[in-house]
């Protein structure tokens, strides 16, 4: 899940200055779970914008704003209201905002901050657990990611910065990931995993902009086509 929060309304107003007609878009996926871009929040945003003197030409909550097919189709359904608007205020993640902007050919304003990929611990509490590094090492740590959850992303065990109560020196509200790993490995009799030296990460796997194209499937498709 992409963890999101809304931008300050004052900052949104500043971004919209000089415009009059706004379309408000939301997303029924992450933005709804985080309660910042679902039906309720989009309606609330519409109300606030109207109170601030804007004309809201329409609103729509996409099922998933980062699915291009969905955005194209629902964009057509809302064509008139979109066309009438000076811009679209998007209450979705940065990917959703760009999908909407690119595919619908509209000026967008991001209404949310995309924070991280995280777990919804409970409503209002979210924790980052994966950095999408492209080289998952959960195997070696019995399911706790030090790349994400150790503030220094260390691969070979903790630094000297953990407190007696197992917190990180950078932020006493955060657990030292390596102590969590140590305790779990010890309990399960897997401490040998911690003793094995780990090589440096291959950061070329995190080179932006990342993309994934199913080459194999294409080849398969080609082959399949050839045999026809």
């Amino acid at each position, binding site marked *: 899940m992409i963890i999101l929060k809304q931008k300050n309304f004052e900052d949104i107003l500043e971004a919209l200055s000089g415009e009059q007609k706004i379309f408000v878009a939301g997303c029924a996926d992450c933005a709804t779970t985080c309660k910042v871009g679902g039906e309720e929040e989009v309606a609330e945003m519409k109300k606030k914008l109207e109170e601030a003197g804007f004309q809201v030409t329409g609103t729509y909550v996409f099922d998933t704003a980062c699915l291009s097919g969905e955005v194209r189709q629902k964009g057509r359904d809302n064509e008139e209201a979109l066309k009438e608007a000076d811009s679209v205020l998007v209450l979705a993640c940065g990917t959703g905002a760009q999908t909407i902007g690119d595919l619908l050919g509209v000026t967008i304003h991001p209404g949310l901050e995309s924070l991280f990929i995280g777990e919804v611990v409970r409503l209002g509490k979210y924790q980052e657990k994966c950095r999408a590094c492209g080289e998952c090492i959960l195997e070696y740590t019995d399911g706790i990611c030090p790349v994400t959850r150790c503030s*220094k992303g260390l691969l070979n065990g903790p630094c000297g910065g*953990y407190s007696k109560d197992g917190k990180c*020196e*950078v932020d006493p509200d955060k657990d030292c990931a390596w102590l969590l790993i140590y305790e779990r490995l010890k309990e399960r009799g897997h*401490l040998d995993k911690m003793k094995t030296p780990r090589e440096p990460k291959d950061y070329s796997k995190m080179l932006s902009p990342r993309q994934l194209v199913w080459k194999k499937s294409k080849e398969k498709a080609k082959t399949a086509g050839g045999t026809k």
Partner: protein
Amino acid sequence: MKLQQALDSGGFVVTGEIGPPKGTDLHSALEEAKEYYTDNVVAVNVTDLQSSVLRVGSMAVCHKLLDIGIEPIYQMTCRDRNRLALQSDLLSASVLGLENVLALTGDHVPLGDHPQAKPVFDIDSVQLLYVIEALRQGKDMAGNELSGVPSFFPGAVVSPCAEPLEPQLIKMEKKINAGAKFFQTQAVYDPGAFEKFMDKVRGFGVPVLVGIVLLKSAGMAKFMNENVAGVSVPDALIKELGSVDKKDRKKKSVEIAARLLREMKGMCQGAHIMPLGWDSEVPKVLAAATA
């Protein structure tokens, strides 16, 4: 390679430490090093932007120490440089005549005076030790041959009073396997805890220099207890330090450091004294510890 020779000879080895200044004025740092460290310590660490606070670099100050006849220990952290920059700096350090390198992960960026900076941590301290070893063997991290091979004497750090201790021991062994030839420790104020630590690491066969940080005031001791992980100043020491007038504080600080050193001398192979600017007190600590 005075440090290596001193450690090999089996005598008790004392090292000191300089935190480079913020700015280009090295005058007093070098004057003090010359006056208080020459003849008193075997080598002097130069910290690498300690506490993530911007300062002049360790390499330049190490080179200046060499110029005045003091053996430097080049501290290198993984916080600010990726693997290209780390390797390049290691080669540069070698070109400048530096041999002793202390490999550290480094304090985190938010703790310093540029909290908005991008933290690097491309590799960690264990991996940095492997890199140093590879360079010594004439290869870079990518396996390419070097033209001209550096000579290094690598060391590492450990936190003997961390709780739990076992993760530190696991990492210490990894550092030894990666090539660490000596260890300097985090500040120790509890000889009992240090003895237990040494009992566990003696078998590793690598020299350990116990970390002695001069306590400047009861306030500093309390601050360390609250903010510095792995450091625990016993209440009795805080009381002792707080019991004297401000003018006698340096004397008391020296007395405490010397006492700690005396108590732990027999347990390990040396001491690393971190005076945090009170360089002038280091000879007094050493004299008092042997008295």
